[in-house]
Structure formats: C-alpha cells, structure tokens
C-alpha cells in the first residue's frame, strides 16, 4: 500500500471501520509513522466522544460480578510473591478455575459473587462436590457458599440440611430446598480440611445428621 493511502486510513481506523487485513496493515505503518500517531491521538479522542453520546442504558447488575469472575479465571491469584507454588496448589488452582468458569453460567451465582468480590480482596477458592452438580466456594475468612444446580425438591415434610464436617464432627450449617440453582450461604465457618455435606432431614432440620450425606464436597 502506498504511504499516502495508508495515512488516509487513520480516521476509519479510529472508528474501527477497517476490515481486519486493512487494520493490520495500518498498525504496521502506525508503528513507525509519527504523523499518523499524532493524527490518531486526535481522531481517537473524537471517536471516543461518540461513546459518551450513546443513549443511556443500565447494564444488568449481575454483569459486574460476571466480569470479575471472568477476570479472576483469566489471571487467578497471580503469585509473583509466592515462588514456591507446589504442584498440588497448581492443581487446586486449575480445579478452582474450572469450577469458577462453570459457575459463571449460573445467574444466581453472579449475584452472590457480586457482593463478595465487590467488598473484599479475599481469595476465593472453589472445591468440587460429589452427589450433585455444583461446588463449594470459599472466601478468605473460611466463609463458604454451596452452589448446586438441578436439585430436586425434597419430599413433603422434609428439608435439605447442610453440614460442615470437621474432624469427624458434623455441625449444622443451614436448611434449604431444591431448585434449578441453589445457593446456600453456609451458616458457619468451613475450616481447612473440613468437608461440606448435605442430608435430607425432617422439616425444621436436625441437630445431627440422621443419615450419611448424599452430597459431599472434597476437603476444603
């Protein structure tokens, strides 16, 4: 492309009105053309003004949470200060990323995460559960949230009950029903090494599980 012709691509480039091959050609030229760099600074400022002139519209509230989750999945716990990342923690991280990515699809989850991420720097981890589709998400202060999908409604007169099971002892952590997406903020801390379990109990809940949990998480 002749140089003069390339200069003329500055305005369409600023408006994103070039096709990809034209844009690449222009960028190659731009890298060493001071005139185009100057022109583009001006024209891009004009183009960006058009963004502000677009009609006002409220983004849905859950978009914020979804973006934060996506960003975290993209660059989870970047650890330049922790050179001793073990194989195990890498594996755990991959699991967490996969679980987070899976959770991104859940609308309710976004609302949960929106609240947590927007107000804290805390690390968020995720562990898998067995017995149902879902995961346990863990915040920095051992706070846990159980997210399950496609959980049948419990039988009449019954409820689901979540348990935090630490060193063989189960403690009640909340009652809940079924649903397409179930989000349970666990009512007690989930210490390291504990697991989260779910049983079916009579309505009103039980102080101790009356059966083996049919849903269990991996150790957190």
């Amino acid at each position, binding site marked *: 492309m002749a140089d003069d012709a390339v200069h003329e691509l500055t305005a369409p480039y600023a408006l994103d009105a070039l096709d990809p091959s034209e844009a690449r050609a222009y960028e190659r030229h731009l890298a060493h053309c001071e005139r185009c760099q100057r022109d583009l600074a001006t024209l891009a400022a004009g183009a960006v003004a058009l963004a502000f002139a677009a009609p006002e519209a409220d983004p849905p509230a859950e*978009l914020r949470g979804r*973006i934060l989750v996506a960003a975290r999945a993209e660059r989870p716990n970047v650890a330049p200060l922790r050179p001793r990342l073990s194989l195990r923690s890498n594996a755990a991280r991959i699991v967490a990323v996969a679980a987070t990515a899976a959770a991104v699809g859940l609308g309710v989850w976004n609302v949960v995460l929106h609240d947590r991420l927007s107000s804290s720097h805390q690390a968020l981890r995720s562990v898998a559960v067995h017995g149902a589709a879902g995961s346990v998400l863990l915040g920095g202060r051992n706070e846990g949230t159980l997210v399950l999908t496609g959980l049948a409604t419990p039988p009449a007169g019954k409820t689901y009950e979540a348990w935090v099971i630490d060193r063989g002892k189960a403690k009640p952590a909340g009652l809940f029903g079924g649903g397409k997406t179930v989000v349970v903020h666990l009512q007690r801390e989930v210490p390291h090494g504990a697991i989260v379990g779910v049983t079916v109990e009579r309505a009103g809940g039980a102080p101790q599980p009356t059966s083996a949990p049919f849903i269990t998480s991996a150790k957190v």
Partner: protein
Amino acid sequence: MTGAMARELAHLSDEAVVALAARSDEVAFAELYDRYGRVAYGLALRVLRDDALAEDAVQEAFVAIWRGAAHFIPERGKASTWILTLVHRRAVDLVRRENRRRTEPLDDAVLAATEGSAEDLAWLRLERERVQAALRQLPDPQREAIELAYYGGYTQSELAERLGQPLGTVKSRMFAGLSRLHELLDAPKGGTWQTTPFTS
C-alpha cells in the same frame, strides 16, 4: 454499592487505577468497571441492539482490559480512551460476526433511557449532552459518516457503497468529522497514540 475499599480509590485518576489493576488488584479493576461499565454498556447496546450481545461485548472488553492493563502506557493516551476503544472494538467485532446490522436508519427510540442513580449519572449526562451538542454542529454528511461507522459498525467500503459515494469521500468525511468533533469538545492533547492490536 461498591464497597468501602473500592471507594478509597475514588480520588485516583483512571490511569492510576489501571496501574493498580495491572498488579492484579481486583478492587481496582472493579473500580474501572464502576467508572466505565455504564458508558461501555450504553455504547455496546447502541452498536449491537441486543442485551445479551451487549453484555458479551462489555465482558470480553473488560477481560481484555484486565489482561492488558500491564501494557497500558499512560503517557500515550487517556485510560478512558483505551478502555472505550476496546469496548467499541469488541462490539463491532460482534456486530459483524452476528451480521446484525440493519439497513434502516438508526433509531434511538428503541433504546429508551432507563433511570439509574441521578447523582452518579450527573457527570455522564452532562458529557452526553455536550457531545450530542457538538455532533449537531457537524455538517450532515460528516456526522452521518462517523455515526454510521461508529454506531453501525460498517467498514469504510460498506459505507461507501451504502452512501453511494467514492471511498475517498467517505474517508475525508470521517477525518473532517472526527477532527471537528475533537476541536469542538476541546479535548486535551493526548500525546501520541498507543497501539492496541486490532485483534486483541
């Protein structure tokens, strides 16, 4: 509500917040969204005219911002320009991929304004009015060329065909329209442009 920690960033410039985000500071990244998410979404919706696609465009752009924050060079341009350029690019990529562009004139009525917190939006509204006023001062052919390109997602060649004008004329109108718009808005000198790869 954006949380107490995010509010502590409120006094920082956009460029400083981008620098924090470049160090994987999620609160800073959330602050960027709080500052520009609304404009970004309004823009994406204008281009794409579809809620779900607009959300996709904004999300992809912000992930690109998070990914690219470390490469942002404040001396070469404003952070807001960088952010909204990425958003616009994603929206245009999507509109071309989805082939959603219509041939009838753009109609603002389909995008009826919705209300947010008036206090938070005051600045945004002023800016919108200011730009719209500047746009009204452009000669019609210039305004038409830049609006169809920017909001419609048309390439220069498609525009030339659509407007029945030679490509050179379209390019001149774009150049004149953008230059004049910049002049009318008296934007501060931005220094040299920082290249953002088109395909990011």
